């Protein structure tokens, strides 16, 4: 599905990613773990074409590095940014509608699916997204990206600021996504969730992958956890 090879990324002149290799298979949930500042967000941004990078990034076998972000989105890559970039002046529903790439195109997901997933959003559908609570905004960004009908969705810290109950809900929905054949690349801080729902995990440190394996393997590897995850 997604194949990242020897990816180097830069903010201006500062070199943040130093040759990252990572891949996600179809129908797989892969988690990317690491400390703050390890470069996880940079990795997904680079894949989305928002950070200048070199190397190769292949989506469904097609090279996407160097394309514009909107072109990449049209290739079927979805991205949920970490800082809740809801469009504050638009209503919840307008935010969701904008998730569709072409007006009226019906993908795997409809508005109703989204509202069923998070009834809270339906209650707030006509409210400007800017006034939503922190958690509601988080739900909205997730749904908005799903509306674009991506084949692979990269989610940056989706459970940030969510109540514990909703966190559990999100975990369930990610699993449900996978069952519908959508691959997920999950960037997480909360180990427990990632370990629970992922098939494989990567651990990142200082801009490079320092561990790759199953959650079980990670659980077993106390050295990596101590050194790179500080738990």
């Amino acid at each position, binding site marked *: 599905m997604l194949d990242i090879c020897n990816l180097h990324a830069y903010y201006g002149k500062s070199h943040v990613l130093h040759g990252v290799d990572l891949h996600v298979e179809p129908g797989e949930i892969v988690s990317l773990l690491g400390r703050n*500042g390890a470069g996880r967000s940079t990795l997904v941004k680079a894949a989305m074409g928002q950070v200048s990078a070199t190397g190769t990034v292949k989506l469904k076998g097609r090279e996407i590095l160097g394309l514009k972000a909107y072109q990449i989105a049209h290739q079927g890559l979805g991205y949920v940014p970490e800082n809740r970039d809801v469009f504050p002046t638009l209503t919840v529903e307008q935010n969701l509608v904008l998730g569709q790439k072409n007006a009226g195109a019906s993908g795997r997901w409809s508005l109703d699916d989204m509202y069923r997933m998070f009834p809270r959003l339906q209650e707030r559908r006509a409210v400007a997204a800017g006034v939503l609570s922190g958690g509601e905004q988080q739900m909205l960004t997730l749904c908005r990206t799903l509306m674009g009908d991506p084949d692979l969705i990269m989610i940056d810290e989706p459970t*940030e600021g969510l109540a*514990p109950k909703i966190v559990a809900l999100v975990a369930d929905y990610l699993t449900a996504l996978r069952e519908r054949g959508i691959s997920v690349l999950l960037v997480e801080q909360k180990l427990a969730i990632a370990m629970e729902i992922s098939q494989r995990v990567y651990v990142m440190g200082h801009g490079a992958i320092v561990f790759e394996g199953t959650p079980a393997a990670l659980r077993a590897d106390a050295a990596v956890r101590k050194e790179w995850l500080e738990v």
Partner: protein
Amino acid sequence: MKALELVDVRKSFGKSEIIRGANLGIEQGERCAVIGPNGAGKSTLFNLISGRFPLSSGEIRLNGQRISGRKPYQINRLGLSRSFQISNLFVNLSVYENLRCAVLWSLGYKYSFWHRLAKLRDAHERAEQVLEEIGLQRQRNVAAGVLTYAEQRALEIGITIAGGADVILLDEPTAGMSRSESDAAVELIRKVTVGKTLVMVEHDMSVVFGLADKIAVLVYGEVIACDTPDRIRGNAAVQAAYLGGHEEAA
């Protein structure tokens, strides 16, 4: 006399009533955490207390004095200070200047254009002290806008406490931090709020249970429970509405 008291506070936006008669009393020197599901109205409650939004009805008292209906700056001058869920800094000013701005009013310099900033020893010392407390001495001359996320959160707290207010409201102070960072943040908060009244919103249960003397649970704009941490943990209604059995998810 309670440090902060909310009596039947209500707030509607248009037709939807978000806060539906919240009652809450916080003793002086108490550390209280407000928890509740997303969209329950926790941030809204903070906005009402700090004067950002006007109340629809009800009354809020700070140290026995009615503050509802006042402007944010008036409430601040009465000794209440708050932080924001999303960092809200003076992005083009240096860290040090951010803090110095925050202490000016409380030291009585107000709108002065006849004092030289550089000559204000007390402002300087207070700013330096806060700088040290939040551990940003090395970044003192860096513009706030280019700090890392965790540093910005720390500065957010720094600005909030710098003015020396004795009632502090913190909105999700550890959001977005890793375990070790949020542990450090808890320590920081504990340190800087000694002897002060603290009210905070948090989703991270380890922070909540680590810091709070009392927990208030807000659901759908009502305080459904307000009690010690242990009793809250055992409260079935809270379990259903909020923790959902995943309390230790983190």
